[in-house]
């Protein structure tokens, strides 16, 4: 954090004023620092993730002494508060006032959708972390790449794992009632049923459900339940699930945010043994992550999770792209071209992008274990090079409607 926000903002404002005072400087600036704008929710309910995004990106830049591919980097962080309208305003500010060359973020799908048009209109190379499926499918934005995963991308391998290796036959899904939850459950259901399993019940409590008691009590008897929640919702649901004595009756498995490190660090033994999926785990045993995860833990006293990893990977991808655009980083077309063409080794393993700008990389099946006194997501199986289309034919996939509450239709629901 010593690359302080104040320094960045100060430098950015200074540059802004200078360019206003002397338009001629603008030209000279094209050889100046490369400007990254980060849209992160640092206040409001999504703040935990946004703060981790900033911490990790700062850490990445500090490790490289503030320069990528021999270019000085200037980072300008804007707080979206997790509100789409604010995300839009802040994005505009980053582009028009701070004159950024590249955008990283935002965190949530509805924020990403709010800036989508503007990113296209202003042609801003954007490295996104939000999951909304269609942004890299039917309505792919040519200026957007995603370095995390679509909502369903990591649920596919988990569904196969649940059917083939855990041998679950009948399952219940439970997720927050918004696009992310719908898409994740739909992807899970599709692969699970294609592997011979049955989804017998789908539960979607509202995002702001005060109490999960009535939902927990209506869960039907099955082999396991799939949790497609994010943030504190999954945390509360799981506690109540245990309180009603259901954990002894059926297994729990979860999507990529259900037992994120940010949730895990406030849980106890009740989380042990729960299997989840993600594109990342702090426990990953590759060279880049062996350096990153312990350093992050040392600095912040907790393990990096989904959000911290997302911006660190964004940094790694950007660095790889800048190396191939020497001298042309200000050329937006060249930059987005080399980001999309980047194939690089990151803390989540080797990644590349498909023609829609979505990442192809490893997905990990993880199990909660205890290590040095804290709970961690140990990797139990790696699915290499998972694409957003899983094993399905791309053309046929894109002809279907986007995943939703009711698509694909659940044919095995039990009354």
């Amino acid at each position, binding site marked *: 954090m010593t690359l302080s926000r104040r320094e960045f903002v100060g430098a950015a404002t200074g540059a802004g004023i200078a360019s206003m005072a002397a338009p001629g400087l603008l030209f000279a600036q094209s050889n100046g620092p490369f400007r990254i704008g980060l849209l992160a929710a640092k206040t409001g309910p999504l*703040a935990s993730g946004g703060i981790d995004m900033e911490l990790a990106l700062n850490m990445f830049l500090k490790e490289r002494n503030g320069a990528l591919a021999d270019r000085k980097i200037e980072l300008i962080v804007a707080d979206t508060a997790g509100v789409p309208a604010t995300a839009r305003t802040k994005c505009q500010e980053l582009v028009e006032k701070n004159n950024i060359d590249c955008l990283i973020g935002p965190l949530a799908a509805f924020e990403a959708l709010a800036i989508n048009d503007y990113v296209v209109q202003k042609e801003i190379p954007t490295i996104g972390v939000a999951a909304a499926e269609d942004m890299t499918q039917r309505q792919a934005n040519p200026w957007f790449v995603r370095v995390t995963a679509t909502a369903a991308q990591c649920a596919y391998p988990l569904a196969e794992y649940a059917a083939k290796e855990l041998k679950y036959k009948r399952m219940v899904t439970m997720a927050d009632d918004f696009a992310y939850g719908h898409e994740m459950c739909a992807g899970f259901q599709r692969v699970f049923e294609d592997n011979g399993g049955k989804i017998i019940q789908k539960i979607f409590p509202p995002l702001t459900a005060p*109490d999960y008691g009535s939902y927990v009590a209506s869960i039907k008897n099955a082999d396991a339940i799939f949790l497609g929640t994010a943030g504190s919702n999954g945390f509360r649901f799981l506690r109540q699930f245990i309180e009603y004595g259901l954990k002894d009756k059926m297994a729990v498995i979860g999507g990529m945010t259900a037992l994120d490190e940010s949730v895990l660090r406030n849980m106890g033994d009740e989380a042990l043994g729960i299997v989840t999926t993600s594109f990342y785990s702090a426990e990953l045993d590759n060279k880049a992550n062996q350096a990153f995860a312990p350093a992050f833990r040392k600095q912040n006293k907790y393990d990096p999770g989904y959000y911290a990893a997302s911006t660190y990977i964004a940094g790694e991808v950007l660095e790889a792209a800048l190396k191939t655009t020497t001298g042309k980083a200000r050329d937006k077309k060249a930059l987005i071209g080399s980001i999309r063409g980047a194939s690089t080794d990151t803390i989540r393993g080797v990644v590349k992008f498909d023609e829609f700008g979505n990442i192809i990389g490893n997905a990990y099946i993880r199990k909660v274990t205890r290590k040095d006194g804290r709970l961690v997501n140990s990797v139990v199986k790696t699915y290499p090079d998972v694409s957003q289309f899983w094993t399905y034919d791309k053309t046929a996939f894109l002809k279907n409607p986007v995943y939703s509450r009711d698509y694909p239709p659940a044919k095995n629901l039990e009354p």
Partner: protein
Amino acid sequence: MQFWIIQGLNSLSLGGLLFLLASGFSLIFGLMRLANLTHGAFFMLGAYLGATALRAIDGLNLWVAALGSGLVVAALGGVFERLVLTRLKTNPLGQVLVTLGMSFIIADACLVLWGGDPIPVPTPSALQSPTGVFGYAFPTYRLVLVGCSIAVAIGLYLLLERTRVGAMIRAGVDDRQMARAVGIPVSTLFTAVFCLGAGIAGAGGVLGGPILSAYPGLDADMLPLALIVVILGGVGSLLGAFIGSFIIGFIYTFGTALLPEFAYIILFLPMILVIAFRPQGLFGRVGA
């Protein structure tokens, strides 16, 4: 059969929780005609304080933590009322805005102090194992919570109906001008009631903690529920808040269990119906 019994108990426990939330709001609204939009934030602050105390002090009892948090939040509420709200006595829009602003300040302060991760409030170890009810297992703590809210209801009833202070508060609710004219120190009373209302919210946050835990956004999740309960039950009526809480508890629980797609609509629908046919709420007095 199991469905009806378990969901019935769920309804009761949610109702109890809602009463702990709404009674303080109703008290303040009734006496001061003040829609205190900070109420949800007081509830959340209580939950965080309780969670922190329980984590920091070994062997601390949940009930003591609730009492302590309640007192701290009550004190904070008192300061807020004295310093800010007294200046806005005749300005209802100003009050709404300033209490809303205060809730943002508390929410952001909580975020700075406690970070964005959800923090659990542990269930007391003696209440962790489920209780058998007609042969079905039900979380014991939820049943105790219902008992708690009934105890709070009785306590408030005795305070309002059987004490001199209660009589003064009732006089203030019925006719503020007249109360002032007969020498009731309305201003002091206002502060006391505001402290009490905030304190109940703070303690309620801790008692609801084992079910809800403390997390950013808890304030915004709970405030609409307090509003629904109070508007349904009737402004300034303790009985209204009590009955209203359990009605909403039942409607929400059975609504979500039977028609999960309409969970939020089902919550607001009864309130809209009541307002349409009985604008003062189920137990509110006309012209009060």
